[in-house]
């Protein structure tokens, strides 16, 4: 067995994989935040709670209705996305014309309410969610052991991220979305229904969070606080990548997960703070973020 800088390969690649897994969640969540911020100009603070809801809906589907993981992967984002549509129509729409800080406050309050409701009903110790039978076990690759489920998470989130990128950058619907993000008044003056797009975009961004929640359910226990713990890091990722850049959110998400994993190998003491250190450095050099356009 070879060693790299005194680190056994099992440990190195194990952390790289872990980093990619975390990166997968950073990427999907920051992508949703970027899409929402682009069109609604709202920093969606309830994103973490909506990710948690995705995990809980998957858990409820399995335990109350006997709906398995694969179906939940489709159903949970739809349900969470639908609650997003309701939130946009009933609440966010009403404050769209005032300062965007109000949107931040509103979604922050919603996050507290949603987390409180789940904590009240399910406690905060966490509920188990089994890895689906098809993805149990793993493969020894020689230099590391690859659990199938973890490999699946990385692949699934890459596919979802790239599909979202394709949808936004390469399709007609995406062109409407980019146009409405850049100049909603003119887009509307061409006969395009911008308010409807705003609602669906919020629903879609939130559904992405729900999807990430289902992916996370078998890895982390299903817990009302799971989103609150993650979302702070995700906001740092978004700041580093630059608000409103789709590809930037994806690349930054995966890279920072990887950097975090590698830090765990080479300098474990800094692993919890490395992302925030990078955030400070990026803000000093490029305040708009690595991929963001200066305002």
């Amino acid at each position, binding site marked *: 067995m070879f060693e790299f800088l005194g680190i056994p390969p099992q440990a190195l690649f194990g952390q790289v994989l872990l980093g990619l897994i975390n990166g997968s969640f950073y990427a999907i969540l920051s992508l949703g935040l970027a899409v929402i911020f682009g069109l609604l100009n709202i920093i969606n603070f309830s994103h973490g709670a909506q990710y948690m809801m995705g995990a809980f809906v998957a858990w409820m589907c399995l335990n109350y209705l006997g709906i398995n993981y694969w179906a939940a992967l489709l159903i949970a984002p739809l349900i969470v996305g639908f609650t997003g549509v309701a939130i946009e129509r009933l609440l966010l729409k009403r404050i769209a014309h005032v300062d965007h800080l109000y949107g931040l406050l509103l979604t922050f309050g919603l996050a507290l309410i949603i987390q409180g409701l789940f904590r009240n009903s399910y406690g905060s110790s966490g509920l188990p969610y089994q890895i689906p039978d098809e993805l149990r076990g793993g493969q020894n690759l020689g230099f590391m052991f690859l659990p199938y489920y973890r490999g699946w998470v990385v692949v699934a989130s890459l596919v979802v991220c790239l599909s979202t990128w394709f949808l936004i950058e390469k399709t*007609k619907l995406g*062109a*409407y979305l*980019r*146009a409405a*993000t*850049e*100049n909603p*008044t*003119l*887009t*509307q*003056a*061409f*006969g*395009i*229904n*911008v308010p409807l797009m705003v609602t669906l975009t919020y629903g879609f961004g939130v559904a992405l969070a729900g999807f990430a929640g289902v992916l996370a359910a078998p890895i982390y226990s299903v817990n009302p606080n799971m989103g609150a713990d993650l979302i702070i890091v995700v906001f740092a990722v978004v700041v580093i990548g630059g608000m409103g850049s789709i590809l930037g959110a994806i690349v930054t998400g995966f890279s920072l997960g990887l950097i975090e994993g590698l830090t765990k190998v080479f300098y474990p003491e800094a692993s919890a703070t490395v992302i925030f250190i990078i955030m400070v450095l990026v803000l000093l050099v490029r305040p708009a973020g690595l991929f963001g356009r200066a305002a």
Partner: protein
Amino acid sequence: MATEAVLERPGGAATKSLLQVRELEAWYGESHVLHGIDLEVGEGEVVTLLGRNGAGKTTTLKSMMGVIGKRKGSVSFAGEETIQLPSRAIARLGIGYVPEERGIFSSLSVEENLMLPPQVKPGGLSVQQIFELFPNIKERLSSQGTKLSGGEQQMLAIGRILRTGANLLLLDEPTEGLAPVIIDQIGATIRMLKSRGFTIVLVEQNFRFAQTVADRHYVVEQGRVIDMIANAELDANIDKLHRYLGV
């Protein structure tokens, strides 16, 4: 329910009225900008709004399109009252809008900019016809929209609303900041569009240019229409016009 109102054009034949604006008022936030605009445009006519900077020409166009905070009065298009409608519904009645500064989207390619406005009526120009009109656009389809020159951007801004089937075009200073040779091309385009039956309302600072394309001119001052001059009578009224425009 199309109105059969007939508009007497000075120096021309009577045409069917397409757009009627009555006592139109508009506000930007608290500031009252239009104080009662009255004008009428017949089908197939090219009409300009002339006036000094800040007279309310652009605001008049924006108010017709419904892209302004608050407005009241009446704007009726093809017999339909639009004052209560959101801009997307106004566009769908068949009104195409080229805003001040052209409104080309930087996050869209030239092709995406061209294809962005949805078709609202049958009878628009085909993409092929638009390329024949503006060959430069065809060469630059995959470029970022705002990488085009000012003249090309103006052609793209006009081209994209010709696709939609809109029969009334609102053009806000299409010649602003452009070289004389490009201005000539825009002028030729407007005359061609008129010959195809488009109705056009044009905001202009440059009455020399307006004279080469328009049937009539409305003079706007302090949020009101203060005069209307037929194009044929423009030269006879040149002193009056100079006074209005302060040139």
